């Protein structure tokens, strides 16, 4: 009885909050052109960044600083999960091997999953996708390995160092921009060297976007795999 009362109280509060938010959103009409900076991006994206996909250009180039932060957040999550689930000795406790379909499928699919992930992040400036889905696809490949085989483990040391080095790579690309162009995260490949200017719409264009997206893809892939690894393994008492 009391719980029903409390639930209805909570629901009423929530409806008030919902109404409050909804009446504000009535002032932001749906489906109308509200662009200000967005229009600038759309008008200049090809000339200024060489990317066809405006979202990618915004993510990596115009608002690259956000993306650096985002990569950092993922790095923190992987570090934090590692720190919190740290045990002196950890092992996998799965007892059953995956079914024959899963193991055989994984064995043949795994390289293709990796290639597909790499394809997604390398073509980020041309097609939808980019580093984050690409990296997630790679992590899915490792997830498949974990589910199919009971003894499989990622090479931790290598992955940790790779994570760090790839992240440093991102910052260093930014610092090279600071040295060449005078601005942190400056797109020196496109704006100073002007590589690929007559190649818009093909793979070798887009300035440092493919470089950064490769870095992001590798980093996301290793970090998500690391998180999965940490979540899946349990402590073993000696």
């Amino acid at each position, binding site marked *: 009885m009391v719980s029903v009362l409390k639930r209805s109280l909570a629901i009423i509060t*929530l409806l008030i909050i919902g109404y409050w938010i909804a009446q504000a959103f009535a002032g932001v009409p749906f489906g109308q052109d509200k*662009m200000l900076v967005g229009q600038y991006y759309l008008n200049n994206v090809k000339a200024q960044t060489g990317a066809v996909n405006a979202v990618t250009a*915004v993510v990596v180039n115009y608002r690259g600083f956000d993306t650096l932060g985002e990569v950092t957040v993922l790095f923190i999550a992987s570090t934090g999960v590692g720190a919190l689930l740290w045990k002196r000795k950890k092992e996998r406790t799965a007892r059953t091997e995956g079914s024959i379909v899963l193991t055989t499928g994984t064995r043949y699919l795994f390289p293709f999953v990796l290639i597909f992930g790499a394809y997604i992040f390398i073509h980020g400036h041309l097609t939808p996708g980019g580093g984050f889905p690409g990296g997630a696809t790679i992590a899915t490949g490792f997830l498949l390995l974990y589910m199919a085989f009971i003894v499989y483990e990622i090479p931790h040391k290598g992955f940790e160092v790779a994570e760090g080095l790839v992240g440093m790579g991102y910052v260093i690309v930014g610092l090279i921009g600071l040295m060449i162009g005078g601005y942190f995260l400056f797109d020196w490949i496109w704006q100073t060297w002007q590589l690929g200017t007559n190649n818009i719409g093909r793979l070798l264009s887009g300035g440092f976007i493919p470089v950064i997206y490769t870095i992001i893809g590798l980093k996301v892939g290793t970090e998500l795999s690391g998180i999965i690894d940490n979540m899946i393994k349990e402590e073993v008492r000696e």
Partner: protein
Amino acid sequence: MIHISVYYFGAISLILIGLYAVLVKKNLLKMLIGLSIMETGVNLLLISVGYISGRSAPILSEGVGPNQAVDPIPQALVLTAIVIGVATTAMALSVAIILYEKYGTLNVEEIRRLRG
């Protein structure tokens, strides 16, 4: 009454359902599922703000000019927000695992009682 689009409605409903789970449920994983649903709702809200009726995706290949695409900024923001969301979720789940290892329960009231 106020008139809002179905997308806004769906997004705000998701936010409220998630918030309800956080407010009322006592199981930690349930609360985290609620937070996750809330984040999805917020992302949907942001994308709906950037949508412009009758325009296509902001990929300016053949046939799509600068005046025929939707706003790219909210999409870039949501891309960031999704990744941040999964990072928070992973962190939260590992803390939940520690709590379960220490107290043997996921019910917050029991955890409080056991802690004294």
